[in-house]
């Protein structure tokens, strides 16, 4: 079975993001970029499925500026076999990404798409569900465990009250939650090997997709700042403050 893994280049999760002075967005120039952490989990899951002999080939896909190739290289160093870069400088929103991925899925015919449940930049949590819809496939979102069983997958999902297990027909989309696995670090030999793995580059027009955004960003602002309060000396003082000053207990 072939597995497709979409990977997104985002501002590294350790970076404290800054809103641009003109309110047009968040500063991404000169900021450390990395693979979206949920996508790392997706790549790891695909590599584990290959190690178990369930997957035969892993294709990593990234969409955006030319430097998304770096993110694909990271996936290749973790164990993906080849990459596809859809290059565009248009701002890509989940609907456009889902349409581009649908076109790639139709070309590549994977048995499974594993992807992060959410990108930590726009926090939309939408693309996997949307790709599943466009393909008419089942979705196993927020997965903390995935078992491939012949023509179906049994997916344990993280839901509000705990865990839920669903059975989905393959081909299907799985989106990863935090507890699915712990992604490996790429070893130096594997990083070297990844340089020789092929990355095919294409444009949205090659896939017949209009990637124009549907949402216009009117402005981006800093959230209201919380003031640091007071440090107290004792538990007794804390309880007194909560009762008499804050009046919350």
């Amino acid at each position, binding site marked *: 079975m072939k597995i497709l893994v979409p990977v997104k280049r985002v501002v590294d*999760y350790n970076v404290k*993001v800054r809103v641009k002075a003109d309110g047009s967005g968040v500063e991404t120039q000169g900021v450390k970029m990395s693979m979206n952490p949920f996508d790392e989990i997706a790549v790891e899951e695909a590599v584990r499925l290959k190690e178990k002999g369930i997957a035969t080939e892993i294709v990593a896909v990234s969409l955006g500026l030319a430097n998304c190739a770096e993110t694909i290289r990271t996936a290749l160093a973790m164990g993906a076999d080849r990459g596809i870069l859809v290059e565009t400088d248009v701002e890509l929103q989940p*609907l456009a990404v889902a349409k581009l991925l649908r076109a790639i899925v139709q070309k590549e015919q994977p048995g499974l798409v594993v992807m992060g449940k959410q990108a930590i930049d726009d926090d939309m*949590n939408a693309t996997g569900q949307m790709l599943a819809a466009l393909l008419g496939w089942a979705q196993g979102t927020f997965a903390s465990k995935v078992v491939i069983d012949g023509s179906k997958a049994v997916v344990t999902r993280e839901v*509000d009250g705990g865990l839920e297990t669903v059975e989905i027909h393959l081909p299907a989309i799985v989106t990863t939650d935090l507890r699915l696995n712990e992604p490996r670090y790429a070893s130096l030999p594997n990083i070297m090997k990844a340089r020789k793995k092929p990355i095919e580059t294409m444009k949205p027009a090659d896939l017949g997709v209009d990637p124009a955004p549907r949402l216009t960003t*009117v402005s981006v602002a800093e959230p209201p700042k*919380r003031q640091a309060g007071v440090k107290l000396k004792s538990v007794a003082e804390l309880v007194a403050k909560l009762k008499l000053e804050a009046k*919350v207990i």
Partner: protein
Amino acid sequence: MTVLVLLDHEGSVIKQPSRSAVAAAMKLGEVHALVAGTNPEAAAAAAAIAGVAKVIVAGDVAYDHAMAEPLAALLVALAPGYTHLLAGSTAIGKNVMPRAAALLDVQPISDVAAVIDADTFIRPIYAGNALATVRSSDAIKVITVRAASFDPAPSEGGHAPIEAAAAVAIPSLSRFVSAELSKSERPELTAARVVISGGRGMQNGENFKLLDPIADLLGAAVGASRAAVDAGFVPNDYQVGQTGKIVAPDLYVAIGISGAIQHLAGMKDSKVIVAINKDEEAPIFQVADYGLVADLFTALPELADELARP
């Protein structure tokens, strides 16, 4: 404008995040509520919510576990009568709404924190470190609502008529197998007036029991940081943060939590924040109204004693 709100329900209870979605919907137009599944009590509960003008019931057993594939198909069938489709940002809303949006060729708007007008909304990005105002050009808007940002519509006061939805073909792509839900007598995290959360500083799952007497005294829900969940101290549904639950209680008590950005994203809208941590440099103190630099293993029993005092 007429707005359809997909409700999360359990027995005779409409979940609080869904009532927050109703409150958001009321800023947009007339509110219709959708109850899917074979739950006769839920329709009456939905009809009683103040602000709901009509309840639509899709009483097919296929909707009982709120699987995305059939629910999205149902929403798409109902969509032509509406300008907006809304749901709370719950596990169900997040799973279903983007699927419905794609079927409608619409870009969904996730986790809306404020309604500016029919097309324009504010939503957090980058773990709540920035707020984006976005305008949609789609003919129908598909939205999930950040429950902590809207006071829930009252569960009583409404008398909406109840109507059955026309049957819709059920896609047979997926099947519910089982659920393993945490059992607790405490209020739900997203609905509690007081939340007490433990972090890595709790050291193990057993120590989370130290939070119980305090939670009992305060009527609080118990939560956790991602570090505590990743370490296996408590189940995933305890997690408060960017990728867990977003809470905004009257009082949030953070115990042994350093205050990583992604945790703050889930609780910084709480009215009053208390932090107890032995590291006085912990970032949690930068957002806490009341901080106590102390070892939690001495502070927690003291806190329980102090609260128990009449």
